[in-house]
C-alpha cells in the first residue's frame, strides 16, 4: 500500500508545488488586469503626459543631409511633429515613424544644407512643445565604410595599441638582467599602471553610461558588469588554485585586461574621427603611443624569470594592442554606446582581477627575497607606475 501511495503522493506534491509557484503569478495577473482596466482608483493621480526622447547619434551621411537617431526613453510613446535645425523649422522624413513607442527608435532624415566645419544644432519638438537638442560640434561628412578608410582607421589602432605595447615589451631583455628586487619594482610599477587604467576605464564607462537612454540604468550596469566580470575571472582563476598560476598565464590576463581597455580607447578615437574631431589627428595618436608604452612593460613584467617562446610575445602584443584596431573600426563605422559601455565595464573587472593576480605574484617574489610585502621598493614601484601613466596622459587629455 505504502509503496503504491508514495509515487501518487509525490505526483500530488508536484502538482501542488506547481500551484504554489503559479498562484502568486496568477494573482499578479489579476491585479495587473484590474489596474489596466479600472485604473485601480489611481486615475486622479495621473499627471500630464511625460514626453522624453534621447538623441543618440547625429551623422552627416552626405552633403545636404542630416541623420538623427532618436530613442524614446520616456514612459510612453512620443510624437515629434516638427524638427528644427539651427533655429529653423525644416522638412524631414522619419523612419519608421515620427511617433516613437517607448523603448523604440526612429531615424530622422533632414535635407539640410549643413556647412562643413561649422556647428549645427538639431532640435526635436514634441507634440506638447517639449524640445530635445542635439549638437553637431564640427560638421564633417560621416565616414562611410571604404577600404581606404578601413585601412587608415586600422593604422590608427595599430599606432595606438599594438605598436606601443610591442615597443614596451622590447624592454624585456633589459629587464631580465635586473636584480630580483628591481624585477619586483617592475611588477609593482605594473600594479600602478593597472590602477591608473582601472580608474580611467571606470570614468570612461561612466561617461558612456551617462549618455545611455535612461532605461539602461547605465551606472548600475557598469558597476554590476564590472563586479560580475571580476567574479567570473576570480572563479576561473581559482580552479587551478592547487597549482600556482604560471607567470605566463598572469601575463595573458594582464594582456586581456589591457586589451579591453584599449578597445575602449579605440572606440573613442574612432568615434572622434567620425565626428570630425580628428583635427587632433597625428599629435593625439603620438600621445597615445607614448602613453601606452608602459602597458608593454606591464605585460612583460610577470615573465621576467622565465623565457617563453617568442610566439607568446607576439600573441601577448596582439591581445593587448589589437583591440585598439577593432575599437577604432567600431567607433568609426558602427559606434554603439551600449556595447561600448559593456566592454568597458568588463574591462574594469578584468583589470581589477589582474591587479589581484599581480599582487599575489609580488607577494610571492617579495617573500622569496625575505622582505615584507609593503616595502619602499614596491611602494615606489606603484607610485612610479601611476606617475608615468598620469604624466604621459597630459599628451592625450585636453
Amino acid at each position: 500500500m505504502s509503496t503504491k501511495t508514495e509515487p501518487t503522493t509525490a505526483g500530488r506534491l508536484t502538482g501542488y508545488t506547481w500551484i504554489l509557484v503559479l498562484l502568486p503569478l496568477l494573482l499578479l495577473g489579476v491585479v495587473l488586469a484590474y489596474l489596466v482596466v479600472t485604473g485601480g482608483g489611481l486615475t486622479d493621480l495621473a499627471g500630464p503626459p511625460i514626453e522624453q526622447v534621447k538623441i543618440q547619434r547625429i551623422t552627416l551621411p552626405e552633403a545636404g543631409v542630416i541623420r538623427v537617431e532618436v530613442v524614446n526613453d520616456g514612459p510612453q510613446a512620443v510624437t515629434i511633429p516638427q524638427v528644427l535645425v539651427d533655429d529653423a523649422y525644416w522638412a524631414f522624413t522619419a523612419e519608421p515613424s515620427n511617433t516613437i513607442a517607448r523603448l523604440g527608435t526612429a531615424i530622422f532624415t533632414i535635407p539640410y544644407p549643413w556647412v562643413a566645419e561649422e556647428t549645427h544644432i538639431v532640435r526635436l519638438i514634441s507634440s506638447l512643445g517639449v524640445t530635445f537638442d542635439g549638437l553637431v560640434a564640427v560638421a564633417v561628412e560621416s565616414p562611410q565604410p571604404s577600404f581606404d578608410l578601413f585601412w587608415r582607421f586600422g593604422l590608427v589602432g595599430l599606432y595606438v595599441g599594438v605598436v606601443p605595447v610591442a615597443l614596451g615589451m622590447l624592454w624585456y631583455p633589459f629587464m631580465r638582467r635586473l636584480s630580483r628586487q628591481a624585477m619586483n619594482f617592475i611588477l609593482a610599477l605594473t600594479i600602478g599602471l593597472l590602477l591608473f587604467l582601472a580608474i580611467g576605464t571606470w570614468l570612461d564607462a561612466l561617461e558612456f553610461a551617462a549618455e545611455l537612454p535612461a532605461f539602461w540604468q547605465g551606472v548600475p550596469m557598469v558597476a554590476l558588469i564590472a563586479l560580475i566580470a571580476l567574479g567570473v575571472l576570480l572563479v576561473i582563476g581559482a580552479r587551478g588554485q592547487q597549482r600556482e598560476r604560471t607567470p605566463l598565464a598572469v601575463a595573458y590576463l594582464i594582456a586581456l585586461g589591457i586589451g579591453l581597455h584599449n578597445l575602449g580607447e579605440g572606440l573613442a578615437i574612432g568615434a572622434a574621427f567620425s565626428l570630425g574631431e580628428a583635427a587632433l589627428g597625428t599629435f593625439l595618436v603620438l600621445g597615445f603611443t607614448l602613453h601606452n608604452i608602459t602597458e608593454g612593460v606591464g605585460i612583460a613584467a610577470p615573465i621576467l624569470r622565465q623565457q617563453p617562446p617568442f610566439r607568446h610575445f607576439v600573441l601577448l602584443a596582439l591581445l593587448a594592442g589589437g583591440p585598439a584596431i577593432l575599437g577604432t573600426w567600431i567607433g568609426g563605422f558602427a559606434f554603439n554606446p551600449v556595447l561600448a559601455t559593456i566592454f568597458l565595464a568588463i574591462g574594469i573587472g578584468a583589470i581589477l582581477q589582474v591587479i589581484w593576480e599581480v599582487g599575489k605574484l609580488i607577494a610571492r617574489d617579495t617573500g622569496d627575497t625575505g622582505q615584507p610585502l609593503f616595502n619602499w621598493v614596491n611602494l615606489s614601484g606603484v607610485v612610479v607606475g601611476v606617475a608615468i601613466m598620469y604624466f604621459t596622459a597630459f599628451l592625450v587629455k585636453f
Partner: protein
Amino acid sequence: MFPIKLPRFLARRDFLRLSLGGTAGLAGATLLGQAVATQQGQDSPATSHHSVHGNSLLVGEVDHARNGFDPMQILVDWDYGAVSTLSSGQTLREYEILAFDKEIEIAPGLFFPAWTYNSRVPGPTIRCTEGDRIKIRFINAGSHPHTLHFHGVHPYEMDGVPGAGPGEIHPGQTFTYEFDADPFGCHHYHCHALPLKRHIHKGLYGAFIVDPKVGRPPAREFLMVMNAFDTNFDGDNEIYAVNTVGHEYARRPIPAQVGELIRIYLINITEFDPINSFHLHAEFFDYYDHGTTLEPTLRKVDTIMQVQAQRGILEFRYRWPGQYMFHAHVSEFAELGWMGLFNVVAPENFAAALAEVGVDEAWNQKAIGGSTVAAK
C-alpha cells in the same frame, strides 16, 4: 533662441572636447540589433508651396476645425458687436468676451495649452468707429484671474489692471467694461493680470480697430497680429506667426488682386523678444504708426519694426501678379514660422485663388467691406 543648453556629450575622452572649447559632439548609435536604414529621397513632406521656400518650413497641416478658428478667417473677421443707438444718438456696440483655457494647435502637430478670449487666439477683433460707446461683458471661465486691458482712452476703473476698478476678474466672475472708442487707430487689448508675461504669451490678446469718422479709402483689409509661443516655457519662443499658426499663410497664400489697395492692421504682441518686424517683398508701403493719423507717418518703406504692443497700418498695391513673401525680417522668426505669402492675381483669376486656400466670396466681402463700415 537656443538657450545655451548644449547636450551632454557622449564621447568619453576629454580630448574630444577640444574641438569646441568645452562642448562636444554627439555620437552614439542605435540600440542593439535595431536596423539603421537611411531613407533618402523618399516622400518628402507634402507642401503646397514647396518651391518658394524649399525645405525651410513646418511639415504638415493644422486642423483648424478642431482648433475652432481659422487664421484665414481671422484676417478678415471684424466684430462690430451688437449695434444699437443710445438716446444721445451715440452708437452703442455690445460684446461678450469669455476667457477660456484651451489647447490649440499652433503648428502642425504641435499643441499649446493656451488661454483664449472666445476660444481663439488672437481674440475677437473689436471694430468700431471713433466716438462709439463700447460695452464688453467679460466672463472669466478660465482657471486663473484675467482682465481686459484696452490700449485706448478710458477712465481709470476701466483700465483692466489689478487694483483699478474691479481689478482682476476671478474665475467665475463677470465684469462689464465700458468706454468710448478713442482715438481712432489700430489698437489692441490684452489681459493685464499678473504675472503679465505669462498671461500675454498664453494667448490673451486681440485687435481693437477704431475707424476714423471720415473713414479710410476703400481697400482690401487684413488683420495681422504678430505673436509667438513658448512651448517649453523656457522664456524663449518656439513658434512665431501672424495670427497664431506658424507658416499658415505660406501653406495658404492670401489672395489679393493686382492694382487694388491693400491695408494691413499690424499688431505686435510677441512676448520675450524686444522687437518684431514686417518686411514686404517686391513693393513698398506707407505706414501709419498706431493708425492714429490720416497721413502716413512713414512713406515708401518696405520694412518696419514694432516693439511689443506697437502697431500700425500698412497700405500698398501690387503691380504685377505673383506670390509675394512677407515676413519678419528677424530671419530667425521667419524660419520659426512667421512668414507668409500674398497670392496676387488678375481679377479673372481671383475666384480660383480664393478656392485654392479654401475661402469663399463671403470672405472676400469681409476683406473689402471693412473699410466701408465707417461710412455705414
